[in-house]
């Protein structure tokens, strides 16, 4: 009963708080700007990451639809928006070749650096780590604030490329030189990626420090939920990997601006037939090596794939266990598998470069190390299946998305085997097979997991329940359209369909694939517009959603010990941890869950106080 009382007090406090704002800012200790804009509260920062990423998700999604339109109906004006775009980008409303290369570049850049990474780490790590380890905030709140504000600055820097001469970056999200070594748009891209990388490093350091130093009384590392474990391991990747990306783009910057020729070989020609400006053009041999950039880039960007997927694996684990009302099968095996994936992630970057001309012997090495990653990934899949085995599975929206994640991640993982095998990669490299794979992993995998997590923690984030019917509707529409959109890409990939081509039908052998491209595009459009349901649901529920109880999912981890809509400082009680996070269906409790914070001697009485519906 104590908990109930405290929460009511909390609500009353919030109400006064708002009144104070309406009345006079100066009378309150935290100004509006410090509370909502330059906030140091990890929950506000998480929401800032979330809303920024949602915005970029719509931008990146729109770009994807432009791409799809062009592939299905090349030369035809983009419906609705085509006529509003400037002539530098479109001709008669249809995507021009130069704009097309900008679109593929910006779509991937936005989705990777401004949607998935900020969501998976920025939003979830910020929201979940302090709450799930039972502490009041991050170890370094101000650093945390800076780590968020670098993201919109970086985003604006990259997007501003659309307004400079020559247009925005157009060398693919991998931004390989020499193509990326000239043009203002590419320099802005480099600056933007450097900044967003800096955000990632700051975030990662903070998550590490917080997890190591601020866990609640009694919480050992192996009492942490898998979400926290996954974010912890991801943070190590961020801190170790991102500086290498920073070095790659910094060196590229030096090439772009000072013509140092680090990645530019001797006597390179420009598109006009002139010589590419390069300090090494001395006629004496030497010059730079473009493949060096690829090594540096992928040394970060392969682990970056795991930065995008590992947190999601953690989130999905927690959601599955909660909704199956059953402990994680093989908790420690799950942790070790995460560690194994993270470690192996650093020794496989060469599989992106099987065709770069590196030593074939090195290719063998990378082939074997890459294929071994399938092992920890399989362990995770099997353990998830083991978790729902003999469970009592509830089908709330978070769990539907989590189950959808498993289903699509299996497909994305298996298609990865093909490209891990060097000789097969020779054929499918840079084809739509790769596009299918990355979308199965990053949309089907990461994004379904992100949806799962957003629905799951929405009540704790905003104190309201989202609309369950809309949530389910959004999931089923997305799941079906996703598969019909991306699965056929495997097929045209096997047919040899290259990626990043403005008009595939220049090639005789690709002409038969136009109907499939149209099929894909129809479902891409449907999938894109289905996301408006999500946005509507999240916004509508803010105002009209049912007020959330403290622990709506009857879950065990510490965030559910906090008030329904926790204020600054998070917890209204002392938190001590007595057990692991997955004591579902424990014989020690009459209920099918036993939260981490419940005192062993008071199991029944204290749980009564946190029961669903009362808050």
């Amino acid at each position, binding site marked *: 009963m104590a908990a109930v009382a405290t929460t009511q007090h909390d609500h009353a406090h919030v109400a006064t708080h708002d009144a104070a704002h309406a009345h006079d800012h100066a009378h309150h200790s935290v100004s509006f700007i410090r509370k909502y804009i330059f906030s140091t509260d990890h929950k506000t920062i998480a929401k800032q990451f979330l809303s920024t990423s949602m915005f970029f998700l719509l931008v990146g999604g729109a770009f994807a639809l432009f791409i799809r339109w062009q592939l299905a109906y090349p030369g035809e004006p983009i419906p609705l928006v085509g006529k509003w775009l400037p002539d530098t980008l479109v001709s008669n409303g249809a995507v021009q070749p130069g704009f097309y290369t900008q679109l593929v570049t910006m779509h991937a850049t936005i989705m990777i650096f401004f949607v998935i990474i900020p969501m998976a780490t920025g939003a979830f790590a910020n929201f979940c780590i302090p709450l799930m380890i039972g502490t009041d905030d991050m170890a370094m709140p101000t650093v945390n604030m800076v780590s968020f504000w670098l993201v919109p600055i970086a985003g604006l820097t990259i997007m501003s490329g659309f307004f400079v001469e020559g247009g925005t970056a157009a060398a693919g999200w991998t931004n390989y030189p020499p193509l990326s070594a000239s043009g203002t748009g590419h320099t802005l891209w480099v600056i933007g990626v450097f900044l967003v990388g800096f955000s990632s490093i700051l975030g990662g350091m903070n998550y590490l420090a917080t997890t190591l130093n601020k866990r609640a009384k009694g919480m050992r590392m192996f009492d942490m939920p898998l979400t926290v474990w996954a974010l912890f391991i991801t943070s190590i990747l961020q801190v170790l990997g991102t500086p290498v990306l920073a070095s790659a783009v910094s060196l590229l910057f030096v090439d772009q601006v000072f013509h140092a020729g680090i990645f530019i070989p001797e006597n*390179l020609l420009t598109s006009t037939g002139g010589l590419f400006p390069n300090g090494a053009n001395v*006629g*004496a041999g030497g010059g730079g090596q473009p493949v060096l950039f690829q090594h540096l880039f992928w040394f970060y960007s392969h682990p970056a794939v795991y930065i995008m997927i590992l947190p999601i694996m953690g989130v999905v684990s927690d959601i599955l266990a909660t909704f199956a009302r059953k402990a994680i099968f093989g908790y420690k095996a799950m942790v070790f598998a995460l560690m194994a994936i993270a470690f192996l992630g650093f020794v496989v970057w060469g599989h992106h470069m099987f065709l770069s001309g590196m030593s074939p012997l090195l290719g063998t090495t990378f082939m074997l190390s890459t294929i071994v990653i399938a092992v920890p990934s399989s362990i995770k899949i099997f353990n998830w299946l083991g978790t729902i085995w003999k469970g009592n599975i509830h089908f709330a929206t978070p769990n539907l998305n989590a*189950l959808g994640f498993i289903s699509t991640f299996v497909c994305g993982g298996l298609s990865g085997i093909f490209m891990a095998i060097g000789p097969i990669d020779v054929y499918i490299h840079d084809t739509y097979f790769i596009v299918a794979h990355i979308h199965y992993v990053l949309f089907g995998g990461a994004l379904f997991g992100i949806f799962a997590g957003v629905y799951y923690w929405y009540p704790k984030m905003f104190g309201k329940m989202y609309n369950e019917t809309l949530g389910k509707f959004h999931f089923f529409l997305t799941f079906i359209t996703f598969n019909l959109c991306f699965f056929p890409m495997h097929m045209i990939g096997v047919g040899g369909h290259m990626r990043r081509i403005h008009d595939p039908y220049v090639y005789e052998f690709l002409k038969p694939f136009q109907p499939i491209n149209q099929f894909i595009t129809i479902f891409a459009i449907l999938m894109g517009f289905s996301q408006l349901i999500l946005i509507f649901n999240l916004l509508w529920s803010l105002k009209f959603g049912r007020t959330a109880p403290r622990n709506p999912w009857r879950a065990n981890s510490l965030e559910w010990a906090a008030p329904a809509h926790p204020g600054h400082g998070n917890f209204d009680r002392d938190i001590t941890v007595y057990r692991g996070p997955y004591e579902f269906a424990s014989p020690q409790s009459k209920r099918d869950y036993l939260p981490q914070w419940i005192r062993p001697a008071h199991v029944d009485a204290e749980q009564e106080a946190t029961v669903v519906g009362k808050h």
Partner: protein
Amino acid sequence: MFDFSWNMLTYFPPGISTYSESLDDLFRLVYWISAAIFVLVQIVLVTFIFKYRTRPGHKSIYYHGNNVVEFVWTLAPTVLFAGLGLYSDEMWKVMKYSSRVPSPDVEIDVVGQAFNWHVRYPGGDGILGKRHARYRTAQNLFGIDPTDIHGKDDIVLTGEFNLPINKNVVVHLSSVDVLHSYFLPNFRIKQDAVPGSWIDVWFNGTKSGKYELACAELCGSGHYAMRGVLNMQSDADFATWMDAKITAKKAILAAQVANPQPEVATPAPSSATPAGEHGSSH
């Protein structure tokens, strides 16, 4: 004319190199293994979702896992996937290891230039002239050494070129500007063309006909149209075609000797007077 199928194996373009069939076989092997795992996992997933769905009176069990099971499902994929990797390595060696490249019957240079493919044949003397990046200009894309007599009669073609069937062809591949990727779908060949490096690719085509050459690495706004055509011919047809090219080249060289024109002569190495300024006027 075009049959839709959900089986991706039906989409391969016809393979016509000596190793295209074994590569497709490897693909099929991986495909069927993956398909089996995929179907199995989805069946288990759907079965569990159905069987253990919540309903009145149904309860979950209190269970944290089993180390024997963990061991088994760690070992099984390790054996399977490591085995697959080791098995595939043979194919990789065949395609890539320089020690495994057969002795070439035909050697050519190929360079990518946004947005064209250029090919250099050895010409009448059968020897490719020496080349170096320092000699490269917009007029001498291959950087042919002007002092090497073997380079004089080399034949350079753009876009469309011929090769004989049933011969080991070694392509020395590079680029003059940005990264390109030399993609012959029917030969199951793809290799990045990296400026500053010469990378060898080999194949042996078994069927005559015209085959498309694509650029598979984003190289600028015209990337999509960087298409070439490879005309595979019988030995005799190729010899006839080549002889005609050689004769034509000899005529051009003879005309140059009779009436030397400075701008047709092999360009000077780039030095203090950058060829770039010269080239940019084109």
